């Protein structure tokens, strides 16, 4: 992804402002920057409310009414996402980027056979031409995600959780997107099914050259399934780099605390450290500087001044004054 041509998604300085009635306005995503190469798997990790889902929704421009992309630039397949008109945006959705959520079954239309849902998506993106019949198209699509062809005639309620998630992936991929955004795709599935879904995503990347943006709070999943990772905290990307860089040499105190909180098989379970305090709420976000400062063991006066990311080793960037 060092070459610009291999780059599929580029997010530069994305800032999303959220306006709420009870807690006022605040920037739930601030200055988020990362890029995803073609065929690459990128993980976005962070705790609940850290802004990872907001970032994903901003990429497909489906932010809730109360939120607004205030600043920054998103380029997907060479096109400026925030500058597109509604028709161009609709083409981009599905054609360039598809999104799957947790609770796959609730993402499917309960009254429509899987086959019809696949064919309609394909038709929307001009893939259901007369050459192939509806049935063939649906079966091909299902084979791609490892489902038997009888699923084509099924209704969503007849599928298990894992099958529903596969069917959803088949439907989304029927539009032939180049980037798949998966927002906690296996929450609510057991670990065996979870592993199968990730195996599937891996093989789809290999076969179709699909890029993956995986949003999760599960560090182990990112370690197993992603090439690079960005760690989010309170709307900032605090650290980003290749998975082995970030997990083996975490630089940001938040990443370090996060990795320390994972109990290991060898160590004493009680040694797994919980982080003191909690992430700041919307109305508690500092105007400048580090948003982790309240909980940080290394805080310094200069942490509250405005500053940017530094790159202590190639490809490994961190938002912390310790590495100035």
């Amino acid at each position, binding site marked *: 992804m060092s070459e610009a041509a291999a780059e599929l998604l580029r997010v530069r300085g994305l800032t999303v402002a959220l306006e709420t009635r009870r807690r006022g306005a605040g920037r739930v995503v601030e200055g988020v920057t990362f890029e995803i190469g073609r065929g690459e798997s990128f993980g976005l990790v962070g705790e609940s409310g850290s802004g990872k889902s907001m970032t994903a929704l901003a990429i*497909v421009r*489906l932010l809730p009414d109360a939120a607004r992309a205030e600043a920054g630039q998103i380029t997907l397949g060479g096109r400026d996402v925030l500058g597109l008109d509604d028709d161009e945006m*609709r*083409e*981009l*959705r*599905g*054609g360039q*980027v*598809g*999104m*799957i*959520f947790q*609770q796959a079954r*609730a*993402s*499917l*239309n*309960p*009254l*429509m056979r899987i086959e019809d849902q696949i064919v*309609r*998506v394909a038709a*929307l*993106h001009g893939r259901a031409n007369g050459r192939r019949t509806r049935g063939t198209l649906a079966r091909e699509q299902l084979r791609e995600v490892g489902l038997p062809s009888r699923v084509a005639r099924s*209704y969503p*309620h007849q599928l298990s959780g894992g099958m529903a998630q596969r069917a*959803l992936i088949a*439907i*989304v991929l029927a*539009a032939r997107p180049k980037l798949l*955004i998966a927002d906690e795709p296996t929450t609510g599935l057991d670990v065996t099914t979870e592993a199968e879904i990730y195996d599937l995503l891996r093989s789809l990347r290999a076969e179709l050259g699909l890029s993956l943006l995986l949003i999760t709070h599960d560090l182990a999943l990112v370690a197993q399934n992603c090439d690079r990772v960005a760690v989010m905290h309170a709307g900032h990307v605090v650290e980003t780099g290749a998975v082995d860089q970030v997990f083996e040499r975490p630089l940001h105190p938040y990443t370090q605390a996060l990795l320390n909180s994972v109990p290991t098989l060898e160590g004493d379970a009680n040694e797994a450290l919980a982080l003191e305090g909690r992430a700041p709420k919307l109305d508690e976000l500092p105007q400048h500087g580090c948003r982790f400062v309240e909980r940080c063991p290394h805080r310094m006066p200069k942490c509250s001044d405005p500053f940017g990311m530094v790159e202590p080793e190639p490809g490994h960037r961190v938002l912390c004054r310790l590495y100035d």
Partner: protein
Amino acid sequence: MSIAAEIRVRRRVIVPSWASGLAREHGLTVGVGILVLLVLAALLGPLASGDSATSTSYGNLAAPSAAHLFGTDDVGRDVLVRVFHAIRLDLLLALVICGLATVAGAVIGLFSGFAGGFVDLVVMRLVDIMMSIPVFILALITAVVLGNDEQTMVLAIAFAYTPVAVRVVRSQVLSLRELPMVETSRAIGTPAWRIVLWHILPNTYSVLIAQSTLFLAWAILDTAAMSFLGVGVHPPTPELGAMISEGSQYIVSGQWWVSVFPGIFIALLVISFNLVGDGLRDYLDPRSRR
């Protein structure tokens, strides 16, 4: 205990198990059966008997007999023949009323629920205003104000039912539009109007159909009630409510058949529509299909 289980247990206490079983398992069959018989009677009865509904040549207030199974009324018309004609008219009026109210309610409800915001607010306040007046009173006043004939009555009743359908559809739309289904669909580039047509509207059908069969039952009752009061259908056109009204003065003097037979058929129509409505709602939901 789950709510559903509790309801089942409670129902068993009130209704004998065979009866609740019949209602649950065979409600649709029984309802459709009664309805088919009534429709056949309405369509074929007048043809088979060959008698005129307004012919007065059968002798006044004759008791039910082999010649006139339901007897004759005060001017010597055959009650059975008039009941056949009346069922036909009442079914037709009910279908038109139900169709108008259901379609209008679905369109307005979909629009209001999906648009949300200010549009929704205005629509719902109008609905509230209309619903603060009892349905029958609203229909009656509208019909009386706009003109005292059949078409006006049909429009007035449909108008009075529309806010009910709007509410049912809108509430369904509000919960449906928050489903991940809609967001996933938007994220894949489906235009809004297709989302409404493909994903929202079909998922309102089960409640909409249950509501529209209720409308049929209501419409039978309200048409009869308005004609009973002399609004809408006028004598000598045979209509069940108008017939009850004509016969009501003779009940005290013992000639019960003039109003009781039309009354029985109103009850049969309403019961069959209710059974069909309940049955259809269960049947049309693929999640409850075995």
